[in-house]
């Protein structure tokens, strides 16, 4: 590596002049004369003994990931630099991608490479300074997937309001499953829940979570899927920041709710899921409706139904009542008629009575007039009526002759006489 050979020259090139000077000193002061090899060995012993495992803070520069998988780089500050190496066996535990300019804290030991007389720090642990390693890895993956559009709002599917078949991808022994089943049991017992067990932390976790998600998708026919676990450290939750897990969630055909850790914990799974629940319990609440609320709703609907029916019946009754009022009771009509009849007959009687009285008065009047005109009245005054034997009234004497029988009616009684003479 060119940078390393540069460093070698910088640090440990022994100038021929100095060597000569040392030898001169040795000669004069009976000092030991080292061979180069001996010196490097001595330095190695000294250095490696002095700095067996130390923490160094510095900025990465000249970072070169080798095809062998090892990292070669330098650590520097404003005054100096030191070459560094991190072998594959160690650097695979580094969650973030080191890059030039990044301030890091490394733990390692100083090693001396005798053949070249060079020294370097061999790193076993690397942590970013400031943000943690995991934090940086998180941000890096988040940025990458965001760029791919995996978090786009348009990708998010609606979580059904009322799910019947629920897939839960989590540990079967964790607090999360217990919490979720508790919540579901309390809210809505009538659900079909299938648990897809998987480790949610540790080396196996990412593989198992991905497998569980894929099996759930293969079975299909789930209304919703919850993927999650209970609270823990960022390391405990880390599986949900692994790219394979996040991509499995993104690829899920079942609408997915992420439920990782506590409310404050955000994982990349949360960004890619259709819905993020702050906790597993909250996830259970989000995917289920409350049976008690629904019961209340149904009761209200039923009440409304009953009220409407009652109102309808009331209305019909009212209509009937009105119609009834318009129908005339025949009995009543009869009474009316009878009254009318009474009334009329009364009036008729009155009229007749009045008429009779009037006629009677008229009669009396006429009768009196008649009476005054009666011939009897004249007889009363001394006149007499003469009739012949044929009962004809004789008003002319010439109608009679001697010997005719006549009757003379007087006021009182009648006289029959014989005519003696006429004049």
């Amino acid at each position, binding site marked *: 590596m060119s940078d390393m050979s540069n460093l070698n020259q910088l640090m440990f090139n022994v100038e021929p002049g100095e060597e000569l000077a040392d030898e001169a000193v040795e000669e004069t002061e009976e000092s030991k004369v080292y061979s180069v090899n001996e010196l490097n060995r001595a330095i190695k012993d000294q250095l490696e003994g002095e700095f067996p495992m130390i923490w160094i803070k510095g900025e990465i520069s000249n970072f070169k990931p080798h095809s062998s998988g090892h990292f070669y780089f330098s650590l520097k500050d404003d005054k100096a630099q030191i070459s560094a190496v991190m072998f594959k066996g160690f650097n695979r535990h580094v969650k973030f991608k080191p890059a030039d300019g990044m301030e890091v804290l490394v733990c390692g030991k100083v090693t001396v490479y005798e053949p070249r007389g060079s020294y370097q720090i061999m790193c076993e642990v690397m942590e970013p300074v400031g943000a943690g390693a995991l934090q940086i890895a998180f941000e890096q993956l988040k940025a990458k997937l965001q760029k791919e559009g995996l978090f786009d709002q348009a990708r998010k599917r609606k979580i059904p309001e*009322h799910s019947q078949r629920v897939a839960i991808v989590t540990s079967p022994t964790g607090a999360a499953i217990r919490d979720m089943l508790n919540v579901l049991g309390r809210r809505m017992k009538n659900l079909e829940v299938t*648990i897809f067990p998987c480790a949610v932390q540790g080396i196996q976790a990412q593989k198992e979570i991905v497998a569980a998600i894929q099996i759930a998708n*293969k079975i299909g026919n789930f209304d919703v899927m919850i993927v999650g676990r209970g609270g823990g450290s960022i390391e405990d939750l880390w599986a949900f920041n692994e790219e394979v897990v996040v991509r499995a969630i993104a690829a899920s055909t079942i609408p997915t709710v992420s439920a990782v850790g506590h409310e404050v914990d955000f994982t990349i799974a949360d960004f890619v899921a259709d819905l993020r629940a702050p906790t597993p319990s909250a996830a259970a609440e989000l995917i289920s409706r409350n049976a008690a609320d629904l019961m209340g709703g149904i009761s209200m*609907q039923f009440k409304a*139904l*009953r009220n409407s029916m009652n109102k*309808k019946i009331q209305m019909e009754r009212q209509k009937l009542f009105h119609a009834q009022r318009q129908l005339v009771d025949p009995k009543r009509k009869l009474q009316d008629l009878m009254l009318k009849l009474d009334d009329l007959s009364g009036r008729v009687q009155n009229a007749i009575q009045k008429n009779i009285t009037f006629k009677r008065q008229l009669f009396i009047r006429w009768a009196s007039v008649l009476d005054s005109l009666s011939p009897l009245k004249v007889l009363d005054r001394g006149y007499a009526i003469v009739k012949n034997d044929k009962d004809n009234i004789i008003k002319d004497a010439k109608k009679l002759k001697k010997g005719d029988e006549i009757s003379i009616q007087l006021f009182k009684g009648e006289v029959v006489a014989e005519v003696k003479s006429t004049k």
Partner: protein
Amino acid sequence: MFESKLKRLEEIVKKMEQGDLELDESLKLFEEGVKLTKECQSHLSQAEQKVKILTGLDENGNPVTVPFSESPAKSAD
């Protein structure tokens, strides 16, 4: 199933509340509404939680599940 029943119930209530139905029709709807109410209520009050757990795949790759009986959590994960 449940959801569609609930929807139908709501629909019936709305229709009834509009109140411009024949009595006959009202009675029919009312009857249906009462039936739906009972069905919805019994659906909700089903007391058993049905939880299964995947135990593996059979030789054809089909999932095998058994009823899940909750055991006390061993860890807080």
